[in-house]
């Protein structure tokens, strides 16, 4: 069966430039950022992924590999406070 080992919580809003820099360090190439006024849409054309960041919420829409999703997740978490 399946069991959850731990739950963690994140808070705050990420700095978009820092988030992009961390993703680049993780080896993600081709990152396109579009300002939407209230937030940003980050497009990773090589990885079939779209990230919508709007203040205190982020939606990661990933059509590609699980390893890419995990890299994006960890990059974002590095830019947030964690408990």
């Amino acid at each position: 069966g399946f069991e959850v080992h731990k739950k963690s919580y994140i808070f705050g809003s990420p700095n978009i430039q820092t988030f992009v820099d961390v993703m680049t360090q993780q080896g993600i190439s081709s990152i396109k950022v579009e300002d939407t006024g209230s937030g940003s849409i980050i497009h990773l054309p090589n990885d079939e992924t779209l990230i919508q960041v709007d203040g205190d919420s982020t939606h990661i829409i990933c059509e590609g590999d699980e390893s890419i999703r995990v890299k994006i997740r960890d990059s974002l978490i590095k830019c947030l406070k964690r408990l």
Partner: protein
Amino acid sequence: LVMKGNKLQLIDPAHAFRELGLEEHHLRFTCTVSIDEEGPVTQTVDKIYQLTKSKLKNYPVQYSNDGSITVSESVLIKVSGDEESKDILVSWSYQDEELGSYLLQILRTSLTT
């Protein structure tokens, strides 16, 4: 667990963040699994429902009127497509990260191989 004055109090995390003047970050993932499966969409939904229930015995798995499946608090599964192929959308919040990623992996391995 939060200390207020000289008292310890057990409160939920979202409440604790607000007490500390912090806003919780809402992170959500949406991933798609594409499969070549013949038959009606409802048949695929039923198969996923049975599979999910068998793998997650300790979690509430619910079949909604709109044909989607919800698991626990935030995991949502939706199937679209035609008679030839289907797209299975799996979405979950960071608080259900272990559950969501596990379910995505189960669906990928069980339905695409």
